[in-house]
């Protein structure tokens, strides 16, 4: 036996190693490339990837604060069945058993998956394959239904396939961009900045914005048309008319590459006597309308850029086709700087469409209409139970859950309790459903609270897989850090359940690249190239073909360079633009004109109602489960609000900066009134981001009528008649807290801070006069400071734990007070000397110099006051100068429109 010898050899120097990976931003459909630096299993820095074609190195404020959303706070760490932590085995078999039993008893259509545009393509592929090929139902839908279904269907009708023909570069080479139903300045900042930069470089380029609301994008437009909500198809039908009248049609192109033009034109003509009638229908001045039409007609390179404003409508598909009609009629499509460009809201909505993750799709741009396509997929998958008919679309799907037809649902990576129309009905549906499985990363999302089985999923930075952005660019997200607890990647979770269901052989994946290869192979499987001029009757063909990647090595996959599909033998390097030669993916290779009867939204407002429009604000993304964590993102607009026209404000007795209540379908939305002429009379705007986790009643979707597009089932989010009235607060105030709490006030709204949370509060009950209003929220605190008056007009409370400020509440019946909470926020969690801590009750630093005003530049935390003072002092005469002096606007640039406004 040898002695153990202790040497004093040093352990390797504890230099924590940093690694940098190229990955992608998970937030919006722009799909920016990122370089992320990781240290100690944490992303510590991100910057734009200069080589990524989507962003060429830039990032918006959401992307550039990605690392701040990191950290495992509030993550789900273990699988749970009925609230009890269990092993993965038990969770997986519980899910499998329930699904199996349900299917055995009620058939495959009694189960459903509800997926998300935030899943990676591989996750999507496996889920879709399991449901449609092996369970035998097409009840797989996704939240992309809420955002992209209309555009997808419009593409298919016009081009024969769901294809975005152009790419981002077209937005910089176009001579005119028509932005309709989109607010890219807020929703797609990087793409927007590219457009603006192109215009700066060549000021003859025009940006025309068509939007009922004067958005930040509209403010910077060369021409802005405040059309009546929902009248978009009137606008484009009118344009078609105008083009015909003015002889601006490209008859050659129409004849050679299109069909159905006459009928489309006649239909448009049948709706309007003349262009003046169009102006009336759109409720805009004729001269403005003509000016915009003229720009379209006389500019060679025109792109129409559209998004949710078009898609989220009861006639979203028609609107999409009305747009495409005009581009076909002028041949302004399929070449550099011209086309109809639909941008997605979600990072991987496109990827989901590619695998066929919508219930009306089968797989890989293959559909149910054609039995050859079903057969093809069946053979490729060797599927025992291939679905043969379309499944239920999102709204119908949750209806079926509600009515009990669907008895088991698996929701992955999405928050339908917040995002679906009539969302309170979704809550009830989930309450009733015998088995709700939720794969999720974060605790206490509104949907997790309704789950029977909770499966902890990995998230951005932890999981690897591919995504496709809005211009068909496929990128791969890297796995850079280890997921916390027992969290697993979604594809693994699904694969495990597939195994438990007895489909081991078909789901034998060890690595996402295995799935990716299969997906790529399917796209090329028996794909007779659509552009070949010789095609057989029975040939199944699709543009979506990435078969050149079917044998990609793991190393290549892990070092994937972004590339636009199709990627096949004909186009091994991908393809920037599609349909360049006027050959389309239809049977006869001609694009279809679709005759459109423009229609207003189906449900019109009653006498005492207003029309609620909804959308994103600049720095938030979706339902805030991720961005709501970052303090600086919340400083820009930190409360749900209701933008109202001054006349409506008068009519409904609403006061600026006070709260108002919207109601519809028995649900309420409480938000702060923002009186603005940017809003048309009779129409209000509300942001979609807030949910039960962030505000008392601000789930817009709960007020949205479940009216969907008759073709694609996408709900009409942009047009809901609702009632509106003042909220009539008795008092208002705020609470700064190091922990999250369940506020009991009639109104509250939560804001993430660096150190904790801020709640803005209002109540219709009397303001109390002691700490009891907080005591039950903080049962462990017994060290309170209270400032009050004896008329219940003023109340301030500070709670301490170990002499550290834990919470601070301030309220007043003077509703006009504006609270400045910066100072007190900074005091949170700090130890305060017991003898002077009462000074905190002022909420102010005694030198009073903490107020920088409303936050304008979220990146550098530069407020309105600071900016004004700097300008007034004469130091800065331009946005650029401000940037040099204060740095505002120099990082993400998304505040530049607001900075410009200081100089006008």
């Amino acid at each position, binding site marked *: 036996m040898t002695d153990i010898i202790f040497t004093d050899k040093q352990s390797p120097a504890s230099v924590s190693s940093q690694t940098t990976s190229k990955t992608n931003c998970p937030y919006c459909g722009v799909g920016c490339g990122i370089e992320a630096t990781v240290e100690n299993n944490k992303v510590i820095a991100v910057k734009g990837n200069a080589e990524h074609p989507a962003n060429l190195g830039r990032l918006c404020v959401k992307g550039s604060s990605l690392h701040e959303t990191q950290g495992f706070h509030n993550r789900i760490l273990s699988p749970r069945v009925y609230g009890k932590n269990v092993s993965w085995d038990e969770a997986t078999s519980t899910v499998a058993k329930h699904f199996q039993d349900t299917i055995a008893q009620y058939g495959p259509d009694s189960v459903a998956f509800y997926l998300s545009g935030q899943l990676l393509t591989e996750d999507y592929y496996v889920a879709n394959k399991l449901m449609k090929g092996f369970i035998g139902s097409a009840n797989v839908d996704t939240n992309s239904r809420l955002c992209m279904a209309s555009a997808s269907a419009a593409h298919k009708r016009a081009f024969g396939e769901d294809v975005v023909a152009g790419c981002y570069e077209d937005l910089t080479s176009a001579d005119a961009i028509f932005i309709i139903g989109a607010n890219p300045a807020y929703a797609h900042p990087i793409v927007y900045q590219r457009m603006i930069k192109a215009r700066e470089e060549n000021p003859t380029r025009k940006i025309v914005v068509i939007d009922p609301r004067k958005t930040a994008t509209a403010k910077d437009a060369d021409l802005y048309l405040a059309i009546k909500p929902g009248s978009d198809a009137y606008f484009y039908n009118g344009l078609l008319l105008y083009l015909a009248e003015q002889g601006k049609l490209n008859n050659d192109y129409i004849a050679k590459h299109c069909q159905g033009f006459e009928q489309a034109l006649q239909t448009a003509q049948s709706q309007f006597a003349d262009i003046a009638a169009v102006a009336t229908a759109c409720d805009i001045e004729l001269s403005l309308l003509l000016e915009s039409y003229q720009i379209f007609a006389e500019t060679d390179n025109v792109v129409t850029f559209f998004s949710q404003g078009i898609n989220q409508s009861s006639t979203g598909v028609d609107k999409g086709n009305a747009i495409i009609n005009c581009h076909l009629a002028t041949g302004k499509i399929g070449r550099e700087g011209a086309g109809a460009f639909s941008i997605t809201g979600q990072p991987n909505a496109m990827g989901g469409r590619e695998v066929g993750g919508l219930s009306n799709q089968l797989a890989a741009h293959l559909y149910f209409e054609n039995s050859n396509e079903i057969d093809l997929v069946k053979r490729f998958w060797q599927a025992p139970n291939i679905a043969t008919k379309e499944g239920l679309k999102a709204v119908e799907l949750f209806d079926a859950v509600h009515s009990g037809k669907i008895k088991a649902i698996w929701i992955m990576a999405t928050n339908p309790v917040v995002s679906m129309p009539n969302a309170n009905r979704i809550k009830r549906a989930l309450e009733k459903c015998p088995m709700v499985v939720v794969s999720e990363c974060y605790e206490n999302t509104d949907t997790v609270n309704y789950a029977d089985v909770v499966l902890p999923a990995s998230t951005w930075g932890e999981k690897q897989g591919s995504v496709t952005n809005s211009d068909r660019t496929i990128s791969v997200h890297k796995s850079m850090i280890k997921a916390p607890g027992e969290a697993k990647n979604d594809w693994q979770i699904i694969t495990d359940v597939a195994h438990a269901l007895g489909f081991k052989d078909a789901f034998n994946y060890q690595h996402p690249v295995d799935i990716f290869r299969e997906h790529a192979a399917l796209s090329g499987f028996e794909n007779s190239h659509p552009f070949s001029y010789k095609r057989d009757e029975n040939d199944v063909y699709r543009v979506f073909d990435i078969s050149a990647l079917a044998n990609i090595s793991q190393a290549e996959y892990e070092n994937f360079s972004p590339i636009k599909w199709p990627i096949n033998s004909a186009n091994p390097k991908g393809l920037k633009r599609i349909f360049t030669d006027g050959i389309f993916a239809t049977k006869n290779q001609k694009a279809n004109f679709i005759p459109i009867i423009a229609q207003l939204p189906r449900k019109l407002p009653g006498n005492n109602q207003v029309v609620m429009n909804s959308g994103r604000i600049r720095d938030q993304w979706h339902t805030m489960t991720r961005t709501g964590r970052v303090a600086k993102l919340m400083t820009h607009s930190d409360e749900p609000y209701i933008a109202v026209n001054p006349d409506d404000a008068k009519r409904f007795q609403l006061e600026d900066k006070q709260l108002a209540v919207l109601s519809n379908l028995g649900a309420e939305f409480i938000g702060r009134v923002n009186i603005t002429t940017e809003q048309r009379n009779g129409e209000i705007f509300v942001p979609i981001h807030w949910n039960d986790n962030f505000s008392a009643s601000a789930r817009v979707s709960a007020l949205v009528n479940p009216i969907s597009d008759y073709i694609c089932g996408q709900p009409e989010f942009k047009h809901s008649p609702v009632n509106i009235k003042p909220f009539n607060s008795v008092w208002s105030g705020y609470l700064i807290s190091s922990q999250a709490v369940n506020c009991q006030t009639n109104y509250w709204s939560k804001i993430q801070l660096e150190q904790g949370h801020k709640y803005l509060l209002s109540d219709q009950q009397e303001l109390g006069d002691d700490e009891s209003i907080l005591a039950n929220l903080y049962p462990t605190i017994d060290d309170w400071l209270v*400032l009050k008056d*004896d008329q219940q007009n003023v109340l301030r409370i500070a709670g301490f734990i170990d002499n550290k400020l834990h919470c601070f509440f301030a309220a007043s019946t003077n509703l006009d007070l504006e609270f400045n909470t910066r100072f007190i926020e900074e005091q949170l969690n700090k130890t305060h000397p017991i003898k002077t801590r009462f000074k905190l009750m002022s909420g*102010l630093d005694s030198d009073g110099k903490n107020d920088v005003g409303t936050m304008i530049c979220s990146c550098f935390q530069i407020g309105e006051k600071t900016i004004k003072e700097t300008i007034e002092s004469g130091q800065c005469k331009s946005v650029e100068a401000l940037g040099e002096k204060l740095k505002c606007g120099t990082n993400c640039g998304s505040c530049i429109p607001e900075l410009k406004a200081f100089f006008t």
Partner: protein
Amino acid sequence: MTNTPSPTADRLTNQFSESVTQLKPLLVIIGNGMATGRLLDEIIKRTPNKYQITVIGKEHFGSYNRIMLSAVLAGDATIDSIMQKPPAWYKEHSINFLSGSLVTYIDKKTKVVELASSAQINYDELIIATGSRTAEIPAKNQDVEGIFNFRDIADTQKIQAFAKQEGSSSKQAIVIGGGLLGLEAAYGLAISGVEVTLVHRNKWLLNRQLDKVSGNMLQSIMAQKKIKFALGHEVASFENTIESNAERKVKSLSGVTLTNGEFISAQMAVIATGITPNKKLAEIANIDFNRAILVNDYMQTSDASISALGECCEHNRATFGLVDPIWGQCITLAERLCNNVKKPFQNAPVPTKLKVSGVQLFSAGDVEVSEGSQCFTLLDKKALIYRKIIVKNGKISGIVLFGDVSSGMAYFELMRQQITVNTMMPELLIGDEFVTTIENEQKVSAA
């Protein structure tokens, strides 16, 4: 015996006079307390030679700082250190100083005062500054040894002697009265190791200066200093033991029985329930009086040659218990006597402070709310900090600060000047610096 003041060089050189009294007007002051001390300074500052001054004091000392008796009792000061005017000082300033002399009579017709010794002193101008004495309490059996007042050096020395007494193993004292004086007495005794129980009629301490919350806070701080409390009750009777020694029977205090029947054992009691102005001389002399000797705005009594000053006087229905307004009286009187200038005395509320180490309090104006007032409070139970401002008709009508008295004077000024403060609330309550901020901001935005 007629008092003939010793002639001064001054007088002797005055060839026109037969009698010294005719040379310089005779100014006689009865009482040598704090008011007198200050008045002498004010007179000497103005006209050191105008009067022939005589000061007659009952106590055996020059003028001293009575306020500091609390500190003496607490061991923070000595009798020597609080002396302000030793006998030599009077000499230096040619002032006749009769210490240990009690004035018993004033004859305003002949302008003479008479001492207990029957000596008589003429005056041209007479000032009564006899201060006040401990108020009496209605308890039975007060002729017992061991019951003390807390008013002057003699009282203080007696109390101290008891506290330092060797032998008796447990020393217990009752302090009666939970006002400023009682608290300071209790504190001083407790500090010297006596087991003190403070008996106070009201439910909380300093009930004239503090509300219930701050009164209770004060109690909890005093309790930390080992003082016990019997609140809400009065002393019904003193109890005693009888010891016979060679000469006589001695009734020594053994405790008190309260109005609720409770018995508290003690060998000493200090009465500090309040003060009674010493107005007896005025009564005898037939000068107008009410609760105290009535004076006009120039400190003159109903007799033009007689003035009154300090705790023994009453001005516009107010009597006095703190030195601050008395200083104003001294100035008014000195102006009139020396310069013949009529500078009316204006009484102003005075904020209260308590001289107990570790206790900070500040109180002025109303303590409790009244009809139409709005009351702002800030309470930190753990830090024992409490701040309260009562606003009436937009102006401050009352201030109570406990535990932290910062900004007290600023509030006091705002109250005194009757400045409208409602827009400053509640920030003002936290500190006037926050209001400056507000005002500055208003200026900025107005500009």
